């Protein structure tokens, strides 16, 4: 039960100590540690948040007085906190929710994107440095340094704890949404529910804090609609494509909630990229899929984002309508040579066109680029269907396919000059 309170309220409790992010983190940690000790013995207090905040505040005062590193400032801060702590612990006090200020600080564009993501997961999500390091496949020390550096920059450069002014808000909100969506996608590709769930939790907090902004609604809708298929996306650790998924495993409640959120976003005149993406995610859940509508929406999205990846997705939809030939021509013009899904998409088009040797090479390129274990196995499976021995070492595989291609070319027509 404390675990639930922790997950739900960590960010809320931490945010009340804003002013110094390291102090806030220590105070929140102290408060939850005290709760872990007392609550099982004395029972959960009637106002858990109030208890946590007041306890954290008292511990913070002790800490500041003990350390006295910045004597004057610290004394001032301690006095301020002490005044607020006068209120009785048993009293049901309403504490202001300052998570929104906190998330705008964590996602400040003066911090690198890596730092924004790590800091958001740490301060709002309550993930430990260890957990974040594991999620992003970097050594603990690297992640620890990244977080420390970011916290020090916030302190030293005085990155404000504030909701940005109206003129800055649209850009800053985009940055916040991008961080949350990046966390979701990190979890999605790996088939890792924990990160996706964390991103959804953050998305819910954003909607709660900014109920009239269409973009957070649309982002939450998008994540819920995609995540609703989570249980069906893997069978015995193997990736299952949408058309082959067991639809009875889809989370209906989540789909309904996602659709309702999307409806609200559209009612608020949302027309941004997350609205379009959520609408596309929604269309993908229909059976049969309306590929014309999907292609049209990808066209709209491509206009909005200028993204070649979106253009590639439009080509995938077009291939469903007119066959892969034109679609292949379209994607071959895209600058996506370093993108895993570009090569897997090409491979799929080539396979469907019966150009197996080229398909095999394309699968090899995709395999070399994928970071996800289930995707690697999926691509190997596809290659195997094309009659290539699956080799754990892709470089050998690559050489194999190259030789293969040369032989095939030798047996073919004379090259024209």
């Amino acid at each position, binding site marked *: 039960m404390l675990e639930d309170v922790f997950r739900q309220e960590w960010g809320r409790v931490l945010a009340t100590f804003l002013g110094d992010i390291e102090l806030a983190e220590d105070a929140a940690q102290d408060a939850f540690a005290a709760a872990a000790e007392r609550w099982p013995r004395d029972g959960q207090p009637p106002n858990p948040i109030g208890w946590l905040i007041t306890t954290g505040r008292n511990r913070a005062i002790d800490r500041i007085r003990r350390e006295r590193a910045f004597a004057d400032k610290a004394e001032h801060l301690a006095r301020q906190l002490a005044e607020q702590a006068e209120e009785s612990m048993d009293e049901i006090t309403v504490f202001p929710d300052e998570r929104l200020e906190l998330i705008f600080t964590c996602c*400040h564009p*003066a911090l690198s994107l890596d730092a924004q993501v790590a800091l958001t997961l740490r301060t709002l999500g309550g993930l430990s440095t260890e957990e974040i390091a594991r999620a992003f496949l970097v050594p603990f020390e690297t992640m620890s340094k990244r977080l420390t550096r970011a916290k020090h920059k916030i302190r*030293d*450069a*005085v*990155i*404000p704890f*504030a909701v*940005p002014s109206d003129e*800055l808000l649209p850009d800053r909100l985009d940055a916040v949404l991008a961080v949350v969506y990046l966390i979701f996608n990190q979890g999605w590709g790996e088939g890792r529910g924990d990160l996706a769930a964390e991103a959804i939790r953050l998305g819910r907090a954003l909607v709660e804090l900014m109920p009239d902004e269409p973009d957070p609604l649309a982002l939450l809708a998008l994540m819920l609609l995609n995540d609703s298929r989570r249980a069906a996306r893997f069978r015995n650790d193997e990736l299952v494509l949408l058309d082959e998924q067991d639809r009875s495993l889809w989370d209906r409640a989540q789909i309904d909630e996602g659709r309702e959120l999307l409806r609200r976003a559209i009612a608020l005149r949302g027309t941004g990229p997350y609205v379009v993406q959520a609408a596309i995610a929604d269309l993908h859940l229909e059976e049969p899929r309306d590929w014309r509508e999907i292609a049209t929406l990808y066209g709209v999205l491509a206009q909005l984002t200028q993204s070649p990846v979106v253009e590639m997705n439009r080509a995938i939809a077009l291939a469903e309508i007119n066959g892969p030939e034109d679609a292949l021509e379209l994607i071959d013009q895209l600058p996506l040579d370093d993108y895993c899904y570009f090569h897997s998409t090409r491979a799929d088009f080539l396979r469907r066109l019966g150009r197996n040797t080229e398909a095999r090479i394309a699968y090899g390129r995709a395999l070399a680029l994928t970071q996800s274990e289930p995707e690697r196995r999926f691509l190997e499976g596809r290659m195997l269907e094309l009659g290539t021995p699956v080799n754990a070492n892709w470089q050998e595989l690559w050489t194999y396919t190259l030789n293969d291609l040369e032989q095939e070319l030798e047996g073919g027509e004379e090259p024209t000059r």
Partner: protein
Amino acid sequence: MKYALLAYSRPEVDQRGEILPEITEALSRPEVKSWVRLQNAESATTVSSPGDGTLLTDGPFVDSKEYLGGLIVIEAADLDEALAIAADFQSLMRAFGVIEVRPILETG
């Protein structure tokens, strides 16, 4: 809170040129506490002490494409305010280079 706006310019920009009237105007804003312009980078001498003695090197310390051309000290409530002021100066000096914003360490 004080911030230093370090204005870096490309070597081909002659530092001794006239200051544009818009920049002069911006420099007289109340947030600007002080400012200096530097002579061209080629006039720099770098002092270091790799061993026991002092070594003098002709030229700036960092050999880069852009050189520190001037420094503006401003007063701002927080980084957002400082960045907004920096952006104003950058848009006026766009042709010359980039601006790095650094919080000033105040001690004592």
